[in-house]
């Protein structure tokens, strides 16, 4: 899998005969691998190598894997797959308490571990690419005020600066009716002063973002007051 080339995986397990094979499987798939036999080494390597993912045995001698997970997560939200020997650990490990991304029960197949590593990495990377922290999502509409981008059903839509501003204001107040004056306030800042033009801007916006502009599902008219953004789902 070329997509995973160069990703670094930190493996933390105290059984050398298992680790050796796991590392070989990961290298075979073009991962960079780092290995720690115990908790303190794991924390040290985590800070020095910045792994993209950690495979972590729950039962490490002395310094439990659960503590290792907490320490790592307090530094950064790294994806972690736990190796567990007991069925009764699983709920604790993947549940709310520890929040590992996934787990594999012993006796595990190394191939299975590699497959999970890829799945978790893909899931995390998709999540990172998919949503910028500024992004707003209303139904099929995605608006990113920082990138100045609007997408409808994944397709990019071109808006004028004024249309973008109006949509941004509406998207920040989903479910709330905004008067024409309130909307105008946000638009007039850069000299777009025509009084009743809001209606025209809204009509143009609807043409671009509504599936059926004649029967708006997102930007609805509140008679006698103004407009309101609603989530149609």
């Amino acid at each position, binding site marked *: 899998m070329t997509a995973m080339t160069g990703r670094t995986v930190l493996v933390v397990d105290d*059984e050398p*005969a*298992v680790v050796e*094979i796991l590392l*070989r*499987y990961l290298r075979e798939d073009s991962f960079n691998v780092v290995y720690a036999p115990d908790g303190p080494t794991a924390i040290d390597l985590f800070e020095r190598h910045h792994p993209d993912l950690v495979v972590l045995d729950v039962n490490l001698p002395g310094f439990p894997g659960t503590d290792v997970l907490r320490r790592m997560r307090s530094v950064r939200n790294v994806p972690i797959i736990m190796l567990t*020997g*007991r069925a009764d650990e699983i709920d604790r490990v993947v549940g709310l308490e520890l929040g590992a991304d996934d787990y594999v029960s012993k*006796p595990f197949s190394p*191939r299975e571990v590699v497959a999970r590593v890829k799945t978790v990495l893909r899931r995390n990377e998709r999540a990172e690419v998919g949503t910028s922290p500024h992004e707003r999502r209303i139904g099929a509409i995605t608006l990113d005020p920082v990138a100045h981008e609007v997408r409808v059903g994944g397709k990019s839509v071109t808006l004028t600066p004024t249309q973008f501003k109006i949509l941004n204001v509406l998207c920040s107040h989903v479910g709330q009716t905004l008067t024409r004056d309130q909307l105008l306030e946000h638009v007039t800042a850069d000299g777009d002063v025509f009084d009743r033009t809001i209606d025209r801007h809204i009509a143009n916006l609807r043409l671009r973002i509504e599936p059926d502009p004649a029967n708006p599902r997102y930007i609805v008219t509140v008679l006698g007051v103004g407009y309101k953004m609603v989530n149609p789902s």
Partner: protein
Amino acid sequence: MSNRVHEIRNHLTVVVSNVEAFRDGIVDPTPERLTTILDELAQVEILLREISSGERQP
């Protein structure tokens, strides 16, 4: 009992990893590796014997 079961799982993990790696051509089944597998299985056998003798003594 649960500790022994846990240990058995650890030994089996070594066995499964090695055999799977032989099959996938990741490592060669050298005499050393085959000995490792037999040692692990011997440990499993000891643990199973301990568990069953524990069951007989109330």
